[in-house]
């Protein structure tokens, strides 16, 4: 269960968002600048809401009424940033292991490396990788943290067509294998349809609609909807 009730201010922009979704994979969908990435950063603990409450699967991460505000390091979330943010001075292997809990079985790492097809890249540095490979390492690193939930910020953005297909294939696989609660931020309907079960449409910092994926599919397919026109 994903429960968000957020109020936050970033300069002129104000975000007021309240939603509760039982979905395993929820997408925050909207134009760039609508507040979806701010929401994700607030969930990750990198942006402090003015007030509100953030709870995922019963774990309260932030609650201004009771003074709960877990630091990012304690939230137990796997975050895949749009710009990947791999550590450039570390090898792929070191990047992958960075967030692994102490005492985690090495087999866990092997499993994720296999799943994401990273075996041949372990000794490389991020500077030697393609866009699709960088994204896969970032996903692997987030998974190996053994998170309670996964946050994906535009996981397919800025990738060329083949790399999108490549990363999407792996995202599908991990959705099946790990069954993690996932919050996905995207402005691309195809990405949302491929990965989410439920969609929160966000417009100008407000929740415009909370739809299941079928309704979203139908409404974005229609050329008359403003979202379809804007993002199509």
């Amino acid at each position, binding site marked *: 269960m994903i429960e968000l009730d957020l109020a936050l201010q970033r300069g002129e922009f104000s975000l007021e968002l309240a939603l509760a979704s039982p979905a395993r994979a929820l997408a925050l969908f909207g134009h760039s600048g609508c507040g979806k990435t701010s929401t994700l950063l607030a969930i990750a603990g*990198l942006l402090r809401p003015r007030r509100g409450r953030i709870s995922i699967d019963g774990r309260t991460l932030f609650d201004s009424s009771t003074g709960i505000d877990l630091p990012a390091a*304690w939230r137990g979330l796997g975050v895949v940033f749009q710009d990947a943010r791999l550590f450039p001075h570390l090898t792929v292997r070191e990047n992958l292991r*960075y967030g692994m809990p102490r005492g985690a079985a090495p087999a866990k790492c092997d499993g994720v490396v296999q799943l994401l097809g990273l075996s041949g890249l372990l000794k490389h540095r991020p500077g030697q990788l393609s866009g699709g490979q960088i994204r896969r390492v970032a996903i692997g690193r*987030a998974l190996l943290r053994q998170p309670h939930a996964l946050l994906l910020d535009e996981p397919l953005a800025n990738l060329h067509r083949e790399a999108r297909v490549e990363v999407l294939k792996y995202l599908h696989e991990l959705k099946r294998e790990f069954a993690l609660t996932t919050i996905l931020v995207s402005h691309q309907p195809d990405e949302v349809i491929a990965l989410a079960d439920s969609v929160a449409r966000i417009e100008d910092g407000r929740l415009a609609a909370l739809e299941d994926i079928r309704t979203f599919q139908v409404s974005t397919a229609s050329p008359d909807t403003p979202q379809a026109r804007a993002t199509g």
Partner: protein
Amino acid sequence: MNLLTHPETVALALSFKVSLVGVVCSLPVAVGCAWLLARTRFFGKPLFEGLLLLPLILPPVVTGYILLIVFGHHGAIGRLLDAAGLSIAFRWTGAALAAAVMAFPLLVVALRNAFESVDRKLEHAAATLGAGPWRIFFGITLPLSLRGLVAGLALAFARAFGEFGATITFVSSIPGQTRTLPIALYELISTPGGEGGALRLTLVAVVVALVAGLIAALMLLRGGARQSEAEA
């Protein structure tokens, strides 16, 4: 045939010892101050920064005199050190303290720039992977600041090696204890027949400064080149 006379060799060795110990002692404090300047905001920060840079701006004789007032046999801290049997006035440790104080601002400036050039988003990513502030600093920030750190160390070492005014004011000129290379050079210049020795020490000083300058330039140049690649 020896290139340097015995007193010249003693002065050179002492200069290396004093500069090295001075820079090493300065480093942890400089790292802490540079991090505060690069990563935090607090009341009175410009004043704090001004105070840190003071040894760079003040006439070295003034710095030396302040050290004498505070750490000399009659100074507030000097008396305590004397009582503990750790007197530093007119000893090589006093020369090292003068070197540390004079080199300190260069280290702070270099480290601050280096820390500021590290992408904070990488530190945020490390936090979401469960890393605490120390692990982020030693695992991400510091390694990514390594070039700036080495450049700062080279410049600070050269500054400490060339230190004259504060040293002679604070700890005078005692052969083997506080007569560092610049002080020995000054005395050779003021002694009839000392021209040969003065020339030899001048050459040594120029070589040390050139090597330090070259290291700093290479580090800053290659760091800069890498940064522009990343931005491109």
